[in-house]
Structures are given as structure tokens and as C-alpha cells.
């Protein structure tokens, strides 16, 4: 795979601030989030880590307006917010080829970005492949391209690199890093990879027992290499165990 070039295009996105106060969410009797309070500044990049089943996806869905919650949930400053979600599953439309899946919902003048995004995630030449003709990692990359091609104000990524090998993953990291630096979207990245969290974001949140248990700021310049974050990683790992 070639090193991913930058997803270029007009800069339309501007980050939005997020304000959660005493946010609770439950499925029936099962309480998932309890009185969670959190502020995220406009354009901030935040990673969310936590145990499997801990409620990360639930929080992300709440931010996307897909889960009903109780408490205060304030996103943006009143203007419409362009939110895009990369779900934990790929959610590609089985009846559309890769390119059409990426172009989904893009206004006509922005369609060209779809082909570019597909190329950037290393899938040039597979534009017409149906999702069932792609490998798991390829499908995940199509979903990533779809989320990125939209230039959202608020980008919510739910384990976007889980099915990728180390090399491809590094390419995708670089791609996302550049894109975020270019556009300044407020970003929430759910990941199981601490190194990834530390490399890509400015703040790592640990979700446990329905609350934000740790809130670690990563004050390092982008792009970061692995060695830059080695110490922090060790620190975080100790916190987690």
C-alpha cells in the first residue's frame, strides 16, 4: 500500500464544542451511563477508551443523537451541526459499489471527494466492488473513507481501525491526522489501542462504570511517532490495570 496522500478539498468543517452535564442512558433496567459530565472544546480531538461493554458506543450514539438520554446534552452553538459517524460495524449498503457507498449523501459538487477518499484509503481500482466482494479490512476502510469524505463538524469514530494490519493502520493514522489538522473537526475516537489514542488525539478519556474515570491530556505536537508516546502509554496502562 502506498503512503496515503492528503484528502484535500475546500475546508468547510469547523469544530463544535460539546457540553454534557449529568447525562444518563439506560437500556431498560440496565444503566449504561450515569450522570456523566464532560466538556469538549471546539476542534478538540478526544479518544475514548474503556472495557468491552462499558458504554463507549452508547456515549457515541448519544452524541450523534441516536440514543435517548436524560440530562443535558449540548452540541455546537445553536447552528445546525454536521455530524458524521463511523459505526463499529461497517454499515455499507450491500447494493452499492464501494465508490457509491462513499459518495452517499455527498452534495453533487462534492462527489469528486468520494473517489479521492477511496484512493486515500488504498482502494483505488476497487470503486465498483460490492461490499461482499471486499475483505473485512477493506470494508472498514470504505466506511472510513465515507466518514472522512463528508468533512463533518463533529466526527465520531467507533474503532475505525480494528480490522487493519499494522502497516495499513499506520497509513490510516497518517491520513486521519492530516485531515483533522486540515479541517479542525471536533473528533471523538473510540479505540482499544492506547498507542493509537495517544498518537492521534489530544486527550484520552477512560469510561468506566458509566462515568469518565480518567481524563488525560496529551500535549504533544502532531504528527507524533510511536516513541513520542511511549511513556504516556506505560502510564496509562498502569492506570488501566
Amino acid at each position, binding site marked *: 500500500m502506498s503512503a496515503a496522500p492528503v484528502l484535500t478539498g475546500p475546508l468547510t468543517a469547523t469544530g463544535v464544542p460539546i457540553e454534557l452535564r449529568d447525562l444518563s442512558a439506560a437500556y431498560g433496567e440496565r444503566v449504561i451511563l450515569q450522570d456523566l459530565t464532560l466538556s469538549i472544546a471546539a476542534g478538540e480531538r478526544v479518544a475514548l477508551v474503556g472495557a468491552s461493554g462499558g458504554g463507549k458506543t452508547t456515549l457515541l450514539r448519544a452524541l450523534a443523537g441516536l440514543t435517548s438520554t*436524560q*440530562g*443535558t*446534552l*449540548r452540541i455546537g452553538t445553536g447552528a*445546525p451541526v454536521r455530524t458524521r459517524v463511523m459505526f463499529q460495524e461497517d454499515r455499507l449498503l450491500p447494493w452499492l459499489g464501494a465508490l457509491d457507498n462513499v459518495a452517499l449523501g455527498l452534495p453533487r459538487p462534492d462527489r469528486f471527494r468520494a473517489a479521492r477518499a477511496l484512493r486515500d484509503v488504498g482502494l483505488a481500482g476497487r470503486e465498483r466492488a460490492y461490499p461482499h466482494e471486499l475483505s473485512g479490512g477493506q470494508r472498514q476502510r470504505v466506511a472510513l473513507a465515507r466518514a472522512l469524505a463528508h468533512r463533518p463538524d463533529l466526527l465520531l469514530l467507533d474503532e475505525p481501525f480494528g480490522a487493519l494490519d499494522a502497516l495499513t493502520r499506520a497509513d490510516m493514522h497518517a491520513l486521519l491526522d492530516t485531515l483533522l489538522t486540515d479541517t479542525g473537526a471536533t473528533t471523538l475516537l473510540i479505540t482499544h489501542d492506547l498507542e493509537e489514542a495517544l498518537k492521534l488525539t489530544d486527550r484520552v478519556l477512560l469510561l468506566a462504570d458509566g462515568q469518565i474515570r480518567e481524563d488525560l491530556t496529551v500535549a504533544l505536537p502532531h504528527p507524533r511517532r510511536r516513541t513520542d508516546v511511549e511513556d504516556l502509554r506505560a502510564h496509562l496502562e498502569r492506570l488501566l490495570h
Partner: protein
Amino acid sequence: MTVGARSRERARPEVQAAGTPSRRPGRAWQGEWIRWLVPLLVVLGWQLAASTGLLNPRVLPAPSAVITAAWELARSGELGRHFLISLQRAGLGILIGGGLGFTFGILTGTFRAANLLLDTTFQMIRTIPNLALIPLVILWFGIGESGKVFLIALATFFPVYLNTLHGVTGIDPRLTEMARVYGLSPLDTFRRVTLPGALPGVLVGVRYALGISWLALVVSESFGASSGIGFLAMDAREFFRTDVIVLAIVIYALIGKAADALVRTLERRLLPWQVSA
């Protein structure tokens, strides 16, 4: 129920205070009566047209006249008798036709050989009208109950068959593959994969079959019968009883509603796992 995208970019409310819980049983009930709105309006408009003389009662009697006819027939026990015998015929026909349709739908959906052998034959029989078959049915079954049940079974066979077949072929092939790899016995494959996967489709077929069985009743009760709702309707037509004709139509409509409610209940019971339920 899916809901269409509303606007391109939704303005998000600044503060979503005390968000609404996702399940609203109150709301659901509240909605139910609306289902009767249109039928009610139709009946009202009809009565209005009749009372104001807009409608010639010789041609379409007023709802009140239909209710009177219903009352008279009901009081004499006639209506109940006709209804019960039709219900019995329809029930038996659906059991046989639906059962066979389900069985063959599963077979042709599961086994390519069965599909090749039988599907075309079924598709060909499907378009033969009941009416055209009556002479043959009388020859084979005489004029007793069996011929009537046969016609209903025939009519209900196809919707169940087609929708079962479609349900089976629509099962995610990745799940079928998994079942194969996990060495499921044919019975387990059927119970655990094929049946639940095809069930939503089967129920659409059942819904359709419940309706069509009453249509088939009209045909099957048009010969050699002196009872049943279909007989009532045809006889009324013969004897120019417009009030009874319309009454029969109303009864059919109510049966349609009952069948719909029945399938809705079945869906709720049998498909608890449906995310969209």
C-alpha cells in the same frame, strides 16, 4: 417501522432536557385508534350521502339499512350460521393450503433439486383461475365440502409458498454457511436458521392467505352450497338484496381487519428479536 430522513442537516435542540425514553407504550396506544379513522370517515360520508339523498338507495343502501339487515340476519341466527360454516371452510383450507405452501416453500428454497422440479409447475398452476377449475373440482370431489376446501387450499397455497420461498432465499447466506460449518443437523438447520430466518416472509404469506381464503370462499360457495358468507353474498346478488350484498362486503372488510390483527399478534409473538419491531 423505519422513518425517513427528515432534513439534510438537522438543527439540534440546544438543550434536550429530560430526554424521552425510547419505548412509549402510551404513544403506541394513542396511535392505534387512528387506524380506524379512514374507515370511520368513509362510513360517515356514506351515511351522509344516503341521508341527504345524494345516493340512490336502490343502488347503494344507507349504512343504517345495512345495519338493519345485519340485525335481522343476526337475530334469526342465519348470520352466525353462515359465518361459522365459512370460518370452518376457510380455516381448514388455510391449514391445508398454508401448510403445504410452507412445506414446499421450505423444500424448494432449501434444495435446488426440489426447486428445479417443482417451482415451475407451481408457478404454472398458480395462474389458473379457481372459476375455470370448478368443473374439474366437481368431477374430482363432487359437490361436498372437500371440493370447497380444496379450492381454498389451492388459493392459499401460493401466497404462503411464494413468500416462504422468498423468505428462505433471503436468509443471509453467511448465516447458512455458518450453520453448515458448525455441523448443524438438517433438523437443527431448519429449526434454528431456516425457519426463524424465513418467518417474517412466511407471515406476509399468511397475512395474504388469510385474506385470499375469503375470496376463494366466494367462488367455492358459488356451487352446491346453501350456507356460508360467500353463498350469502352470491345469493343476495341473485335475489337483488343490495342491503345484504353490502352487508357481505362489510363483513369481508371486518374479516380482513381481524386477519390483519391476528397476523400482527403473531408477528409480535414470533419475532421478538426483530430490531425494528
